[in-house]
């Protein structure tokens, strides 16, 4: 279980932070399929197969990538939910709020980016 904060860089070059407490207290207990798989998180945040806006939000993005989870979830998507905020210095920083496995991309989310 990750205790320290982790820093990633997303597909647009923005910093993304995964707080250790989010991982330890929320993600690992509720979504153990992604626990101990920071490489999958890094890959999905840096080069997702799809980036969508979360339903009803322009500042929360959902990043999807396939083939990064261990079997038997190999064909499923890792879905990483990132909340972006602008700092007082004008920099946009993302914070991972959740991550889990899903079978498909949610068609109700508005697409933002595809490779």
């Amino acid at each position, binding site marked *: 279980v990750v205790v320290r904060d982790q820093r990633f860089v997303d597909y647009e070059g923005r910093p993304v932070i995964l707080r250790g407490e989010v991982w330890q207290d*929320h993600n690992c*207990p*509720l*979504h153990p399929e992604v626990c101990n798989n920071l490489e999958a998180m890094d890959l999905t945040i840096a080069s997702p197969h799809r980036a969508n806006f979360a*339903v*009803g939000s322009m500042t929360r993005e959902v990043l999807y990538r396939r083939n990064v989870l261990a079997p*038997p979830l190999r064909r499923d998507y890792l879905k990483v939910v990132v909340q972006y905020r602008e700092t007082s210095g004008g920099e946009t920083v993302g914070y991972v709020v959740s991550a889990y*496995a*899903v*079978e498909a991309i949610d068609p109700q989310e508005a697409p933002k980016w595809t490779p």
Partner: protein
Amino acid sequence: MDPLTTRDRWLETIATLRAQDSEKAVISYDYDSDELMIRFGGSNRPGVGRLLGDGWLLRLDRETDEPIGLQVEGFLARTAPLHPHLLSLLDLADLRGITVEALAIERRRIVAAGRDRVIKETIEAIPARAFAAD
């Protein structure tokens, strides 16, 4: 096509969910992600979410296709305003990222936004037998 969510299997899926022991279900709510989770049997098993629509996901054991939980994305922002009675789940939930006091304020805001619905449901709840006795 998803075997569990096709029309033919829908009733079976609902029946399976209803058969779960509610006493053993563990409910969690995380404010930052606005995610509500019901884990049947308190299961901590790895799973995958199958889309049910409107932010609802059925969590399945990938190897057995057995339902192990329900997940609701955007619970306060999206689901509760449409289904205010589901706010009761929060009274049963382990809370993360929000206090009981702050949650009470959120609940009042959501219920107030559905004022018309609450009044209508109240009228519909009037016992019919009071009139039948006339």
